[in-house]
């Protein structure tokens, strides 16, 4: 049966083109890959190559034809011994079963199946924190120690877990988070990398694709900007792009946000950046207990995790339950302080401002409920909404920049889910909209303050 040659599209947006020249004549023998004709659009000239073999039968669209619609038959190809006037078969078997007529000028639109389910984000229920058994001993630990213990416990538990990064092994960690790990686990599992963030992030993601569970330490998240392509394009998207086949169980961790007097390039909060990306989970703990329980959960999680620590919090001490395996749920906020007058939502070091402000406010007769998000993505919006339904007011606190920040997201969520319960606009207390200055006085101004939180709470409570 004769086969039709169709006017091809050069791009998904092309609808028609000019047939400038026939390279083959009727009766010529044609092999796969032979140039049959030349076509042009306003952008380009291209050759039409034969896919099928045989003899060029009839030229249906002559040289010089203008505005030939895509998918119009332009010639027929005959099998050996076939008559040029034989009725042509549809262009290719592909076209025969194509869902739309092959003569359609627009790109062929495939049949959409009847929706078997409404496309909606899945609702995920996160279990609450495990009960700490009565009588459990609590030990005072710094966040630094809690993070180290979490890694060590998980490395003892699973031989596929390893840690890599700059100065994590011999130097014992630039901020001493990996102290002692080299001695216990050896150089095979505690790996000093060259200063090469983009490269070692990619190596970590590749190892995770092969089934290992890397903990990639960035000396600070400021340096992870060199690696953000691997984090987002490779780690976060691969599960989706592979239709669920290839996953990346990997933790990217390190200090995030401002330290002290290190200026703009070393003082940036990336929470909102990573929070924007589907395929990532983003954790930013405040207390040592949360740091430990959530880092252990992060290492076990089969997804890519951004674990944002804070340099100033590393040395802060908290009570940590002395349990063999203290693992916390990812995606669950914690009520750090109960109150009825206003909800203050924060995370990481923002909690220091939030809690101090709540203390001061209590002295003035305002009972603030303080929510520690702990996980930023997936965000425990229910916890915020539940609280705001009680208080009717909300103030958010973060060190990051205001535009498109975490506070902006919370405000939008409350507009959507608790509008009728709000008695005042949601106010954000954030880092100022400036690069971090070096001078001590300016740096202080650029960061949020307890006074600003108190002021915002008074504004929303009309006090």
């Amino acid at each position, binding site marked *: 049966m004769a086969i039709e040659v*169709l006017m*091809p*599209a*050069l*791009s*998904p947006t092309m609808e028609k083109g000019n047939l400038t020249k026939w390279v083959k004549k009727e009766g010529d023998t044609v092999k*796969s*890959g032979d140039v049959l004709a030349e076509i042009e659009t306003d952008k*380009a000239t291209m050759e039409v*190559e034969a*896919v099928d073999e045989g003899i060029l039968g009839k030229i249906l669209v002559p040289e010089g034809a203008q505005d030939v619609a*895509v*998918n119009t038959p332009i010639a027929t190809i005959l099998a050996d011994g076939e008559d040029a006037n034989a009725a042509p078969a549809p262009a*290719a*078997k*592909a*076209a*025969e*079963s*194509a869902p739309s007529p*092959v003569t359609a000028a627009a*790109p*062929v639109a*495939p*049949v*959409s199946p009847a*929706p*078997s*389910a*409404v*496309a909606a984000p899945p609702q995920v229920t996160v279990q609450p924190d495990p009960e700490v058994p009565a009588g459990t001993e609590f030990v005072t630990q710094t966040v630094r120690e809690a993070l180290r213990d979490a890694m060590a416990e998980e490395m003892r538990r699973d031989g596929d877990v*390893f840690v890599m990064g700059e100065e994590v092994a011999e130097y014992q960690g630039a901020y001493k988070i990996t102290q002692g790990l080299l001695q216990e686990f050896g150089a095979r599992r505690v790996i000093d990398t*060259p200063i*090469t963030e*983009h*490269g*070692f992030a*990619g*190596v*970590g*993601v*590749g*190892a*995770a*694709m*092969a089934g*290992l569970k890397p903990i990639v330490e960035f000396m600070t998240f400021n340096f992870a900007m060199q690696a953000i392509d*691997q984090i987002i*394009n*490779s780690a976060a998207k*691969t*599960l*989706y*792009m*592979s*239709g*669920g086949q*290839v996953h990346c169980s990997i933790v990217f961790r390190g200090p995030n946000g401002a330290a002290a007097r290190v200026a703009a390039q070393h003082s940036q909060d990336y929470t909102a950046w990573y929070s924007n990306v*589907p395929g990532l989970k983003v954790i930013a703990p405040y207390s040592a207990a949360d740091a430990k329980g959530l880092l252990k959960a992060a290492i076990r999680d089969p*997804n890519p995790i951004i674990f944002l620590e804070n340099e100033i919090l590393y040395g802060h001490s908290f009570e940590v339950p002395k349990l063999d395996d203290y693992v916390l749920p990812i995606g669950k906020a914690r009520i750090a302080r109960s109150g009825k007058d206003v909800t203050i939502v924060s995370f990481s070091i923002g909690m220091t401002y939030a809690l101090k402000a709540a203390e001061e406010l209590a002295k003035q007769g305002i009972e603030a409920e303080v929510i520690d998000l702990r996980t930023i993505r997936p965000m425990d919006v229910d916890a915020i909404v539940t609280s705001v339904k009680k208080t009717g007011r909300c103030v958010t606190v973060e060190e990051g920049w205001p535009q498109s920040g975490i506070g902006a997201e919370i405000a939008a969520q409350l507009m959507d889910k608790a509008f009728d319960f709000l008695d005042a606009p949601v106010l954000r207390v954030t880092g100022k909209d400036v690069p971090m200055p070096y001078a001590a006085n300016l740096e202080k101004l650029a960061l949020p303050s307890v006074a600003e939180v108190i002021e915002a709470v008074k504004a929303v409570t009309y006090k």
Partner: protein
Amino acid sequence: MAAKKTSPRTAVPSGPVPFTKDQDLEAYREMLLIRRFEEKAGQMYGMGLIGGFCHLYIGQEAVVVGMQMAMKPGDQVITGYRDHGHMLSTGMDAKGVMAELTGRRGGLSKGKGGSMHMFSIEKQFFGGHGIVGAQVSLGTGLAFADRYRENGNVSVTYFGDGAANQGQVYESFNMAELWKLPVVYVIENNKYAMGTAVSRASAQQDFSKRGTSFNIPGEQVDGMDVQAVKAAGERALAFAREGNGPYILEMQTYRYRGHSMSDPAKYRSKEEVQKMRTEHDPIEQVRTRLLDGHKVTEDDLKKIDADVREIVNAAADFASSDPEPDVAELYTDILR
């Protein structure tokens, strides 16, 4: 170190061992499958069945087929966006690949990845990556996992002459050599990074030397000759498998088609393309050997041609009739 003394970089590579009849038949069939598949993909793109970008591998078939003939089961493959040939050579199902190109539910990524993003754990194929050069660090990470597990596998990491100018390639080279990772870097030098000739983009145009400052041995290979590719692949894989670290193979190859479907290829002459096609075509070389050397008949080859065409037509049929993904798939596979 001992390994370096015997490095094939300094040894004079012996000529490739001529293929047996069966090897030539295998190479012919595998290369033809890629070519016919790509021609069909080009046709289906022209019909509007394939969207977005579509980068065809026509002309470069000997590279992946020769490398695959040198590899062992368990060795991993990773590449960039011109990936259909790599997938077919690892044995991934033509139907699944074509249905992914058309964005259907039977595609290897359920229609959610497209031409540049397909994977197969079963065949140890790790993509299919659309960010130029990203696969080099990832492939180095696959090798890291091989060394960590001491499983004797090698990561075959493909990239082009364009990607060879990305910074993370050299970050990866450094770590691969530092840690003696089992990785073979296959640089497919097809002379053009999109529309930019190698001479306009590369200070060092001998890509086999791109690892020199890291002490990574490398060699230039006639990437249009499947025998030469397999022989070089075997040397490189053995070197990496024995714990000597990475190895670079610059495959000198050529793509007949444009960078992508919408590339008019004004940056090179038709004569240049025609010369490569008539004088160096990888499939024609094997075909000539089969007919003249191995005394295979035209009819035998026609039968292979027909078999291959049937596979490709079946793939095209499936890829055009298979339904689009269920709308519920929009929100699946984001997190595990």
